[in-house]
């Protein structure tokens, strides 16, 4: 396998940093939307009917928005990037499946075409066309998975928590640094 030219590596690193910031900002924004009005979020979570116990329902509705904000902040600051990305994946996958399940149930009940189904999924953006939301979530999922590759360590405070300080941010992409990422 031949190594990518430095320009390509640099472009990939820049794109990864931008993806990290974008993902972080999206999660901070969506988390804030829910955190300022947890009652509305609580009602929306309840509608999914996957939790019946009030304590568990309240715990999910009250902590999930702050959890998203925290992970978003980690990504923006570039701290424990892969750990934060894994947590985002762990939130995105089940919630996208719940949204899909609810949308399918509504489509079956009302006989509405799937891509015409619209409701507030509790994702933080109000009422949305579910088709669009699922595509959006898939995009976010791809970005989160991309961050797992370990690229784009520039402008990160501490990319990896469990590595020695020498692994911390590198100002520019160099062949040696890139080799280290893959190690």
């Amino acid at each position, binding site marked *: 396998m031949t190594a990518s030219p430095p320009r390509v590596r640099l472009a990939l690193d820049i794109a990864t940093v931008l993806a990290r910031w974008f993902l972080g900002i999206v999660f901070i924004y969506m988390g804030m939307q829910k955190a300022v009005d947890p*009652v509305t979020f609580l009602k929306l979570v309840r509608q999914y009917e996957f939790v019946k116990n009030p304590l568990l329902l309240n715990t999910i509705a009250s902590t999930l928005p702050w959890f998203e904000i925290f992970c978003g902040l980690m990504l923006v600051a570039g701290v424990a990037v892969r750990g934060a990305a894994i947590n985002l994946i762990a939130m995105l996958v089940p919630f996208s499946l719940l949204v899909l399940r609810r949308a399918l149930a509504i489509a079956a009940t*009302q006989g509405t075409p799937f891509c015409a189904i619209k409701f507030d999924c509790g994702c933080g953006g109000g009422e949305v066309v579910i088709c669009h939301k699922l595509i959006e979530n898939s995009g976010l999922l791809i970005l989160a998975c991309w961050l797992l590759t370990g690229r784009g360590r520039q402008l990160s405070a501490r990319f990896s928590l469990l590595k020695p300080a020498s692994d911390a941010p590198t100002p520019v992409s160099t062949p040696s640094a890139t080799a280290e990422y893959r190690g």
Partner: protein
Amino acid sequence: MKKPLLEALLVALTAALFAFAANALSPHGLKLGRNYFPGDTIEAHPLPGPANHLTATVTNASGASDAVVARLREKGLQVVDSAQAESLFQDPRFQQDSIIFIDARNDEHFQEGHIPRAYQFDHYHPETYLAAILPACQRAEQIVVYCNGGDCEDSEHAAISLRDSGAAAKEKLFVYPGGIKDWEASGRPVETGSRGSGQIHKGKP
């Protein structure tokens, strides 16, 4: 891959601590041990969408769907229809606070427009409202609780909460499932701002 997973666990633990602390400190935070949906029957939750909107399913005089009325009755709640709500509003006892209306929506919606002289009881924050409505509930002969109408369940939960806490006797509690949407659609007066603000206008039919 082991390190990122361990890191994810550390992030999850720290994020959970942060989340619990933020919820506890937030003025909007939820009380974890409270049941916000008393009398809940999870199977009865309506699916969202056009079929559950008031305009699409008004099938009786209460201004709400038959399913909603049946669910309320099943929970031991009495229901008033649109005409009965109007008649209670016109009753002279309403002026003496023997008949009261309770708006179960949040502050923002209440300020936007409520039934004139209605009390507010957002049951998600009972500590803010209970002290004000408790004497009124004790005095009143009939209490009508309402929210938005349609698939809104806040009036139902507020009524159950008032009943179960002993704030209002079962016999005098009524739910108006048509809610403010039905009230406004009938062109009845609506008060904006706080209770007794005097800013009254006619609902838009």
